[in-house]
């Protein structure tokens, strides 16, 4: 199994020189199994570039299949869906999985509402779109074994995903807050013995809006990785105030205290499990 990050930023995209090395696009990670079958985690603005690249494959002739796992319904995880080109090719199949108190369908209807989106309705996408509220049991799609769990997040829309293929385990916890006290059982279950844990890491300036809410800080990511005995930790979904320099400082601090390999996800980078 290998993965490629197309967007690593959280909250909103951050164009600008201070974000150029790691990239300013919001969350999108392409995952491939050994057979080359794709899966996408999140549809932030990074997914636009992936969509273009996929058109060179089966998706360009309407024969592509793509499971899409949403770790959250916020725009930084869903907002590029109206600009994801494979969704406009008849014959392609996209299966969206996520969680929301009102149901994923209603959130996607609101995302495509004619007042806010020129596509007017998700039903105007030409591909076949499957919309699935978080399944309560593990499932298979496109050669991947997938399990999702709701994890603590301010909005009840945060989902942790555990993705297995080729005997490897990839865990995604990119929309999670860790309340004080012991780590949630759901969080540990998702990350348990994972070959790679991708975990949210925000940077907070005192007083800024994200100090109120907006995901876990980096040292909590390390606590989860250790608690769940994950083999490697990859940070992602950085806060918009987390410049490249701050990010590298954050990783340095974690490496100083960690016995695990720690890395920072970077736009365009491929990681082999």
């Amino acid at each position, binding site marked *: 199994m290998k993965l490629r990050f197309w967007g690593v*930023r959280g*909250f*909103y*995209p*951050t*164009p*600008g*020189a201070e*974000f*150029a090395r790691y*990239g*300013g*696009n919001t969350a999108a990670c392409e995952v491939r199994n050994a057979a080359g079958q794709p899966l996408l985690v999140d549809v932030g*603005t990074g997914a*636009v570039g992936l969509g273009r690249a996929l058109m060179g494959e089966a998706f360009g002739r309407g024969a592509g299949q793509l499971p899409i796992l949403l770790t959250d*319904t*916020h*725009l930084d995880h*869903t*907002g*590029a869906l109206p*600009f994801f080109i494979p969704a406009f090719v008849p014959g392609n199949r996209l299966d969206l999985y996520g969680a*929301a*108190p*009102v149901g994923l369908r209603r*959130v996607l209807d*609101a*995302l495509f*509402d*004619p*007042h*806010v*989106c*020129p*596509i*007017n*309705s998700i039903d*105007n996408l030409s591909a076949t779109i499957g919309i699935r509220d978080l399944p309560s049991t593990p499932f298979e799609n496109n050669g991947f074994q997938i399990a999702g769990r709701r994890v603590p997040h*301010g*909005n*009840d*829309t945060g989902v942790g995903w555990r993705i297995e293929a080729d005997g490897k385990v990839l865990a995604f916890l990119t929309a999670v807050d860790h309340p004080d006290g012991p780590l949630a059982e759901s969080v540990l279950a998702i990350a348990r013995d994972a070959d790679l844990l991708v975990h949210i890491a925000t940077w907070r300036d005192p007083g*800024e*809006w*994200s100090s*109120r*809410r*907006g*995901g876990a800080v980096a040292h909590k990511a390390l606590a989860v990785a250790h608690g769940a005995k994950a083999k490697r930790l990859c940070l992602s979904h950085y806060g*918009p105030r987390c410049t490249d320099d701050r990010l590298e400082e954050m990783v340095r601090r974690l490496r100083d205290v960690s016995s695990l390999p720690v890395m920072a996800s970077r736009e365009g980078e491929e990681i082999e499990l």
Partner: protein
Amino acid sequence: MQAVFWGVRGSYPVPGPETSRYGGNTSCVEIRTNAGERIIVDAGTGLVRLGEQLVQNGEQLGNFHLLLSHLHWDHIQGLPFFAPIYQQGTQVSLHALRSDVAKLPEVLRRVARHEFFPVSMDEWAARLDFHEVHAGRRFGASAFRVRPFRLNHPFGAMGYRIEADGTSCAYVCDTAPFFQVLHKKHFLRGPEPLSTADRRALQKLRSGLVEAIRGCDTVIYDTHYTPEEYERFPHFGHSTPDQALQVCAGQDVRCLVLFHHAPNHTDDQMDGIAEQYRALGAQLGMEVVTAREGMTLPVRGGT
């Protein structure tokens, strides 16, 4: 007056090395009087940068007016991340099309339900009040006089002519041209045949726009597409620089600003567009400027 461009891009933000010179943030323009009063037009991700700058300078916005052309995500996505709305004492007067004003609280309640943004509107310290705008019905907003006019865009969009300091600046975004497609309240898979009434409606939209921008010192125009791109997507609700020039030519417009650049346009492409239309504008006696993020453009009156 001067216009400060905080976001110049259409559709969605495009960070990256290929867009770093013209900028990747979506639509947001700040208009300032010489005395420093402000009006903000559209709340794309460029608005976030404006908020950061204000915080950095220790400036409080106090009461301010925000004009929205319409509610498409690229024109509102920055609002929940705009630092001043978390400051006590901020009062936002939001001006938008009647149907958008009706819809805005619902969109913002979605924000409150946390489906699309991490911070609830309930946590905003700012007070918001909503104002309907109507085509041709002028209103005052601090030191500015504002004249709204209708544009040709799916579900409707409003343009604004803004006057202060004896100068005038118009914001014409988003809009399709006025000959091939009439945007109404349904999804277009492609151009649809125009009825006689449709043609009349298009003519009326165009003449309303021309009347509103006549004699304007600076016109900021949705020139999303190149002519070749427009041929492929005439039903997407955006114009080209050529169409902007046609609308402004002969109307005593001094400066045309190309704006709302397509997300796929690289800096090198934009350089080509900027030079081509600068030269074409010069032939017509019009200054043509291509908007870049961070640019401050003086709005100069006639001599």
